[in-house]
């Protein structure tokens, strides 16, 4: 259900941009989803197809770009990859880490006609 309302937000953005960017049909949506954002890409695909029915993006492909979770470890003074929010540093084991990538979801670009 969470993914359903997020897909509705995606469609709203697409519809809002249609006039400004002068397009009638969207053929692909490029969506960045961070690994730490808490959204399941498969659920997004499922919901996307039902949400866009009858809209200007009815036949659009959903291209999901998965962004790895990254965080700054102040003990190691380096950026490390993390799979969960609460993980400790894979190098030195300390936490908290300062998350600096992979906690976002945004529309990157559209392929339009």
């Amino acid at each position, binding site marked *: 259900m969470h993914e359903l309302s997020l897909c509705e937000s995606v469609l709203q*953005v697409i519809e809002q941009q249609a006039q400004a*960017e002068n397009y*009638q049909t969207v053929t692909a949506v490029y969506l960045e989803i961070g690994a730490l954002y808490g959204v399941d890409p498969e659920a997004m695909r499922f919901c996307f197809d039902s949400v866009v029915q009858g809209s200007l993006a009815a036949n659009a492909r959903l291209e999901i770009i998965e962004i790895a979770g990254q965080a700054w470890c102040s003990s190691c003074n380096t950026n490390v990859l993390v799979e969960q929010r*609460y993980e400790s540093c894979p190098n030195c084991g300390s936490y908290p880490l300062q998350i600096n990538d992979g906690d*976002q979801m945004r*529309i990157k670009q559209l392929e339009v006609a």
Partner: protein
Amino acid sequence: MCGVCGCGDQHQHSPKHSHILGLSPTRMVKIEQDILAKNNHYAAENRRYFAERKMLVLNLVSSPGSGKTTLLTETIERLKADTEIAVIEGDQQTSRDAERIRATGVPALQINTGKGCHLEAQRVGQALDTLQPKAQSVLFIENVGNLVCPSGFDLGEAHKVVILSVTEGEDKPIKYPDMFHAADLMLLNKIDLLPYLDFNVEQCLAYAKQVNPNIEVIQLSAKSGQGLEQWQAWIKKQLTLQA
């Protein structure tokens, strides 16, 4: 070479230009827009509204059955003598919770989210027009019972307060880290039941701190009244910080 379609010509792409008869050409439009940008915009408006009125707004989040509404009615009973209070209730269906709050004599407005699993800032903004909360009041927003989705939706509140009851298991903070990460205060509810359960309080608090090192914790029971004074004092302190 054309950079858009890769054909050999030098030309501009317009919607009319077509390489293959009967197929319209496609082009890329950069959007770079956060999905939650719209919600965040309304949340900022709400936050401005609350600041102008020096209100304290708390977004109460938990799983269903954590005892949010009972805790809220008990809290209201203790605060209402000297504090203005209003409540926004979020549920998928029914106005049962708002009716329970109104029984305490405090104004309450129910938002039914229907298929939605969380409250959004725009709906809260609309509710404010109807509810007309008073200046320097405390507004409690009881979110839809769900430990996942409400974490990502800012409503303009000062703090998210997560309520975890001891009947739910001590590992909830690491199972639902986003919510415990987003909250500033955790209320560990139903502690009167601890003698009957295998709930490890120390382990639970350690998990919560692991996800969010800055989270404050108050242990309480809405039923026995234990810890409610500490919770009440926390609210009063936060209210003075809004002035």
